[in-house]
């Protein structure tokens, strides 16, 4: 077993995140004989895609599907590789000198690594609609987490709304698990099909096509699908009671519901990388900030690489290959070519296949403007309860960007540390000011990237240099 109960001060390689990319990277470096540690705050390996793949109570393999169980193989390879796995280890800081601040086993500490692979994965894109903070409104990813980790399936009248592959996958899994879906409200833009056609060739030849069509056809047979949804709101007093929506330019409809699950794609989880000082740029196709990387996932910071969806959304299979490439680069940097490396060209070939197909999916499921850039009283920042209109009003009286907005409205200063509002705020300010999101930029992120108890920081183990650093002569 690879799980550890204590951490060393130094490792050759530290991998942050135990999802597809992190596991693959660690397997490569540990197999090559480098001391490797994987830090992840979850109780089991797998990340989001393969969450609880070793522990899930959902043992009927048809429910979660073959792609999920594929994760078992990767986890087994990882566990056999000799890499150490710190379960429940929350990384809250990474410096340019590759010092990692981690909270593990009830205490905080620092550790150092010669190479760091950030594999922090993706987050669901915020879906700010009126009423999205009501109890009973969740993200599709959140519901899927409950299914994988605890075998929970939502009951009552469940409505799924949004767009993107994960929405269809979860609908399929939920039906397989014996759940009932009241309706699916598809918000993808009809114009998206036409735009996506020019990227169709690589998609047709990719593994996505057959899988995707089969999945969607299966779900469609059993669930009422309403397409061309152009506006969406959750209604209810103390919990969601209904979904209010429009199809195209038709009049408003109201559908009674006990649960509304929202999803409009995933975006890179950039908090740790940005806080470490990795340069990011605005990706106009994926509508999010992505790190600037070389072909092995290397960042501008010496010895720090990013692999997986944190490097730009490409899916689990691509994440595995990107993880391997980052692992290969780490081994070459620390040991030279040892011969015990996986085949780089094979990884690149697989990657090319998935990357090519991505443009089609990105264009097809590009979340439409109205669902990214809210208006009026719709909450933008959930932690501080800031509405879209407040943001617009403050931009009009002189606020120029997200960091200044913090002092005006406290937007992004709550416990989620901007994860639930960052992109919305950037795009909202950009639109109000009439400039590009690239020009607006993102919140300035700083450690701790995960909230950490005062006592943990206060009880950090001390080295001699730590003491000299605060002793005043």
């Amino acid at each position, binding site marked *: 077993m690879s799980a550890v109960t204590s951490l060393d001060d130094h490792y050759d390689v530290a991998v942050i995140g135990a999802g597809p990319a992190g596991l693959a990277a660690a397997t490569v470096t540990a197999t090559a004989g480098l001391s490797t540690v994987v830090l992840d705050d979850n109780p089991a390996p797998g990340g989001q895609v393969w969450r609880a793949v070793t522990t899930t109570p959902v043992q009927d393999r048809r429910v979660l599907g073959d792609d999920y169980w594929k994760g078992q193989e990767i986890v087994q390879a990882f566990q056999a590789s000799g890499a150490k796995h710190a379960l429940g280890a929350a990384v809250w*800081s990474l410096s340019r000198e590759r010092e990692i*601040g981690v909270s593990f086993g009830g205490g905080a500490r*620092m550790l150092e690594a010669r190479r760091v692979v950030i594999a922090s994965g993706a987050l669901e894109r915020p879906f700010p609609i009126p009423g999205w903070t009501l109890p009973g409104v969740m993200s599709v990813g959140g519901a899927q987490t409950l299914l994988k980790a605890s075998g929970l399936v939502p009951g009552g009248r469940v409505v799924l709304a949004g767009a993107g592959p994960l929405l269809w996958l979860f609908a399929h899994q939920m039906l397989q698990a014996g759940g009932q879906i009241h309706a699916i409200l598809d918000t993808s833009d009809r114009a998206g099909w036409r735009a996506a056609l020019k990227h169709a060739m690589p998609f047709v030849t990719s593994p996505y096509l057959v899988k995707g069509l089969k999945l969607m056809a299966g779900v469609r047979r059993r669930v009422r699908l309403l397409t061309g949804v152009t506006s969406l709101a959750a209604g209810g007093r103390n919990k969601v009671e209904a979904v209010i929506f429009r199809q195209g330019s038709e009049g408003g409809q109201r559908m009674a519901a006990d649960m509304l699950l929202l999803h409009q794609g995933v975006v890179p989880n950039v908090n740790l990388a940005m806080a470490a000082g990795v340069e990011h740029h605005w990706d106009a196709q994926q509508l999010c900030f992505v790190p600037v990387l070389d072909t092995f996932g290397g960042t501008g910071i010496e010895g720090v690489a990013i692999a997986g969806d944190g490097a730009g959304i490409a899916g689990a299979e691509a994440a595995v290959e990107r993880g391997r490439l980052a692992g290969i680069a780490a081994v070459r940097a620390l040991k030279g070519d040892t011969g015990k490396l996986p085949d780089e060209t094979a990884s690149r070939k697989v990657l090319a296949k998935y990357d090519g197909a991505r443009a089609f999916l990105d264009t097809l499921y590009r979340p439409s403007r109205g669902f990214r850039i809210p208006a009026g009283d719709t909450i933008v920042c959930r932690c501080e309860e800031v509405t879209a209109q407040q943001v617009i009003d403050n931009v*009009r*009286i*002189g*606020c*120029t*960007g997200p*960091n*200044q907005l913090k*002092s*005006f409205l*406290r937007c992004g*200063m*709550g*416990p989620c*540390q901007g994860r639930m509002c960052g992109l919305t705020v950037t795009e909202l300010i950009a639109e109000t000011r009439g400039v590009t999101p690239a020009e607006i930029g993102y919140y300035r992120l*700083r*450690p*701790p990237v995960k*909230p*950490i*108890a*005062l*006592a943990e*920081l*206060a*009880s*950090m183990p001390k080295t001699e240099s*730590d003491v000299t*650093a*605060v002793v*005043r002569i």
Partner: protein
Amino acid sequence: MQYSFLNLVRQGLSGHQDWPAQWRSPEPKTAYDVVVVGAGGHGLATAYYLAKEHGITNVAVLEKGWLGGGNTGRNTTIIRSNYLWEESEAIYEHALRLWETLSRELNYNVMYSPRGVMMLAHNVHDVQVFKRHVHANRLAGIDNEWLSPEEAKAFCPPLNISRQLRYPVLGGALQRRGGVARHDAVAWGYARGADRLGVDIIQNCEVTGIRRDINGAVEGVETTRGTIKAKKVGVVAAGHTSVLMAMASLRMPIESFPLQALVSEPIKPVLPCVVMSNSIHAYISQSDKGELVIGAGTDVYTSYSQTGGLHITTHTLEAIAELFPTFRRLRMMRNWGGIVDVTPDRSPIIGTTPVPGLFVNCGWGTGGFKATPGSGHVFAATIARGEPHPIAAPFSLERFVTGRLIDEAAAAAVAH
């Protein structure tokens, strides 16, 4: 528009849609009577008092980022005036008196809250020094009182006064008129006030050079938005002052250090005052939002990076966790840094420079926020008259040549 009950009702009736912008965003003119570099609290206050008290309204405040985005928006907002030396007492007390009426003066709620600032003594040296401060302050008519550990605990119930601590509480010096204010509101209030008097606040305008005529006197500044002429230039740029002054070939006796602060998740009101511990260099207070605001010390190395060393923070938190055991399980949400400009005697520099027409206000170290109104007030007078205001006079640049220092560092054993 005046902020008043009547206007509040009037705007309320129209759904609060017609409040005007608090300040304009003007294009820079080609020339001004005075250019102030730096739109933090001190710079904006300077512009405000230039217009208000000296009738000089043709003033531009240039800011490379946004107003109040530097140390004004990053500090822990502590206000007090219980310094040791008469010169320091004079300027900080001058500021404190202005704080007391500032919201009314600016027609803007700066949320000044005189909840009391308590400085803890942890060893015999602290006790002696703080008692000396108490006596010195009382002689100068400034309130400051000595509290026994039990009195300190009565004033601040969450405080742990056990004798077993690594930093035991042996007593404290309390200034009841001390407290906190809302830092952003101070910048906004002065900005709005100055703007209403005709001052141009120009954001996103970085000064790249200081122009001088053949006699060496200042004739304007080069900026990223063009050349702006002015016979008088006041530099109020905190940590970056030495960079700006170098443009006029002046070397400043200041060093720039990162200073850090952090906040916890918000909780219900538990901490009724500001608590400082100079020996450990920790400050703590509770914001109106409910977050505990904790200030740490400066790094021991100079730097322009707005992030400080983690050791500094953990050192501070060790002490906080001992002094306030109930806070141990609170989660820390954010940590940030600012660049503070520190002089050899830990006192500011306010006044004229060897370059005619060039004025400087800097060196406030880790404690400039409390001085904001007083600093702006005397600096405005200094610029307007071309000679130091009496309160500013001891804080001249020449003191580092003459040796007439105001050594608050030795007095308090801490940079503050």
